[in-house]
């Protein structure tokens, strides 16, 4: 028996962390033995058969990479050059003047989270007085990221529970009221968790107030191509701001649109006023990345670079993305149809059709969401968010029954 060198562990006082509200849902789902169970928790795309989906272009790219037999040397801190070029072109458009002028600092980073974290660390270091404005609600991890990076944040109104739509006037008012020079975190498309996006006209107005207040727009683009099915259309909000000559932060992720979740591939882009500024900003972002992970993982970057770099594969990707987005749209429609047909209360469920992307904010509150899980074995997050990516046409009627029951009765079965 080995003698302990310490009397009391140094980690005696370390408490158990609470389960992650999003990733914890999948874990609870796995533990459920009921046949009817449905996982509408984490935003990972599923086929109609509710199976995970590896895009065909990704399989092709990987096979190609295996054949090429490239080495696994360290990438530079900023990541794979071919990837960085491809990702910036996808986002801004290959012909965008900002790219031709060399005004964009792009670093490959660890998917959306990693990109946001690098930007947050940069904000903390160079804009220590500034605040980030985030939508109410927003993706749960946004708050964790800014908290851990020690960047203060406050919320702007976004979701209107009365309309299950956008509280546009509240949003504008809150952005207006914030101190000049705040960072405004915007979802480029397919807002998470609500699925509610501003219209093009509303985007113009948002840009107006941001410009007037000399705020910095900070986009989180996790669903480019996945929302409408079109890469260009889904980037239009970002491009609108860039066109106005503003400096902009944009975080990108390929988790959903290329199904590369576990490869952790994304990028942080900073549009700067001159190429010289972009170089300086890039150098400092690198300085933040080095003590976090030294250099980013190569595999996902190569996949993206191969897919985007080959016209045939790029075309196939666009098609697969349209199919994924199309499946989601169909499921939305079926869910709406089922709800309208089954709900005799006259409640207007059309907000579901106005929302876009992987998620839908059902308008269910925590108690009602609990009922979904406890009584119907439907797993979702407590804010009433369901992931349509985890829904099949076959399950729409069951889901509609559950939502109607939870909404109107809202009482969970006692455990």
């Amino acid at each position, binding site marked *: 028996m080995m003698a302990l060198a310490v009397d009391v562990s140094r980690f005696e006082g370390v408490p158990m962390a609470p389960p992650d509200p999003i990733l914890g849902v999948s874990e609870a789902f796995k533990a459920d033995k009921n046949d009817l169970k449905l996982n509408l928790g984490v935003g990972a795309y599923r086929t109609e058969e509710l199976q995970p989906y590896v895009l065909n272009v990704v399989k092709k790219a990987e096979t190609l990479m295996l054949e090429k037999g490239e080495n696994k040397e360290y990438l530079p801190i900023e990541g794979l050059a071919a990837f960085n070029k491809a990702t910036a072109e996808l986002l801004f458009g290959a012909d965008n003047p900002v790219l031709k002028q060399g005004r964009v600092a792009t670093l490959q980073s660890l998917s959306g989270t990693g990109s946001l974290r690098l930007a947050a660390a940069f904000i903390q270091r160079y804009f220590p007085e500034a605040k980030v404005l985030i939508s109410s609600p927003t993706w749960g991890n946004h708050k964790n990221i800014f908290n851990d990076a020690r960047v203060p944040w406050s919320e702007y109104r976004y979701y209107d529970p009365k309309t299950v739509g956008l509280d546009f006037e509240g949003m504008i008012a809150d952005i207006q009221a914030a101190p000049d020079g705040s960072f405004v975190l915007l979802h480029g498309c397919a807002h998470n968790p609500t699925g509610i996006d501003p219209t093009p006209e509303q985007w113009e107005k948002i840009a107006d107030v941001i410009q007037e207040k000399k705020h910095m727009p900070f986009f989180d683009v996790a669903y480019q191509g996945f929302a409408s099915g079109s890469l260009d259309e889904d980037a239009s909000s970002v491009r609108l701001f860039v066109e106005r000559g503003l400096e902009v932060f944009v975080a990108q992720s390929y988790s959903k649109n290329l199904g590369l979740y576990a490869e952790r591939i994304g990028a942080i882009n900073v549009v700067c006023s001159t190429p010289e500024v972009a170089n300086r900003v890039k150098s400092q972002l690198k300085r933040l990345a080095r003590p976090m*992970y030294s250099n980013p993982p190569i595999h996902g970057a190569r996949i993206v670079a191969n897919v985007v770099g080959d016209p045939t594969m790029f075309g196939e990707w666009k098609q697969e993305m349209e199919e994924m987005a199309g499946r989601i749209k169909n499921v939305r429609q079926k869910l709406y149809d089922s709800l309208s047909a089954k709900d005799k209360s006259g409640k207007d469920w059309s907000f579901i059709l106005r929302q876009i992307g992987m998620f839908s904010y059902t308008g269910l509150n925590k108690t009602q969401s609990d009922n979904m899980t406890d009584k119907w074995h439907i797993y979702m997050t407590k804010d009433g968010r369901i992931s349509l990516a985890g829904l099949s046409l076959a399950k729409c009627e069951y889901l509609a029954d559950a939502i109607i029951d939870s909404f109107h009765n809202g009482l969970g079965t006692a455990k």
Partner: protein
Amino acid sequence: MAMSRAAAATGAVTRRRLGATAARSMASWFGHVEPAAKDPILGVTEAFLADPSPDKVNVGVGAYRDDNGKPVVLDCVREAERRITGNMNMEYLPMGGSIKMIEESLKLAYGEDSQFIKDKRIAAVQALSGTGACRLFADFQKRFLPDSHIYIPTPTWANHHNIWRDAQVPQRTFTYYHPESRGLDFSGLMDDIKNAPDGSFFLLHACAHNPTGVDPSEEQWREISHQFKVKNHFPFFDMAYQGFASGDPERDAKAIRIFLEDGHQIGCAQSYAKNMGLYGQRAGCLSILCDDEMQAVAVKSQLQQIARPMYSNPPVHGALIVSTILGDPELKTLWLKEVKGMADRIIGMRKALKQNLEKLGSPMSWEHITNQIGMFCYSGMTPEQVDRLTNEFHIYMTRNGRISMAGVTTGNVAYLANAIHECHAVII
């Protein structure tokens, strides 16, 4: 507020025209952002790549090269990749990473039959190679032991300082390298251990110290461990070269095993960058030995909590390669053979470099080249001598005189020896 389409369109056009001029006349937000200095290690390779000289030699960055100076992908890795391509979906790993990869990593570090593994006392998560493992630990230290410092050896891998600094854990140094002998300053080291406040946190290189290549002997490790017990210090091991140092992973983990036998509860960062050649895959593991299973679960949950706002969950590809190799007896045997091959080549190059220098009639002692172990050799050269090596001989290395032996080949060892000899001859 409603806006007519026409008004919106006109407004949009006006704004677009303004946009083009706005960019040129606008003051950037980033006026106060200075250009960062080049990374001292990675900057060397950049300079090497830019050099057109046919004689150029890169003994800068610590990435293994074969005898032709080419990067190597191990056969076991290629085979593992063949097996995993197209077979696995890319769903998010659990927050703490690949369970299988963690299991195998713990066996490597703590021993196949470790009682700690059986008792589930080790909190462990997959991490972004060695850097990521150290950073997770540093952040954990900051969060749960906010009054603690970290003692870092002099010298150490440059990025260690960056990691604990960005994690906001105050640093102190402890004596390690003895320039005169190009070996270990053991008495200095022991003094610093004794003089540090009880319960201090120490960063130790488990084997193949970077950048010096100077490791304590087994006896010296035992004394260090004993003194740590007396002082109740916390040992955090950075093990980036297991298997790569001596060629035998068990032997390279000896320091860790000594500490475990002595009852220390350690922390350990592991990397597969060098020993499996998975550099760009960022595959590693952070482990912390706890009192019991319950505490291990709590600590692991907190490590995940730190990782979530940094990158959510770790990349799968490298982890799959590691677990495929280590989980298959044949592939594991192949890996052991290949890692020994890499280590043997390095050991061979050390002998060759020393012999060449001695043949040139150098009056200095070059014993340290073969006394030191692992990828790096601390040559004892000054920054000025290094600059001369680079400018006159197109030999690239870091200015602290560190030579990456992995960059030495039978083809360039004589040239390298000659250049070093020339640079030393002037001083004498």
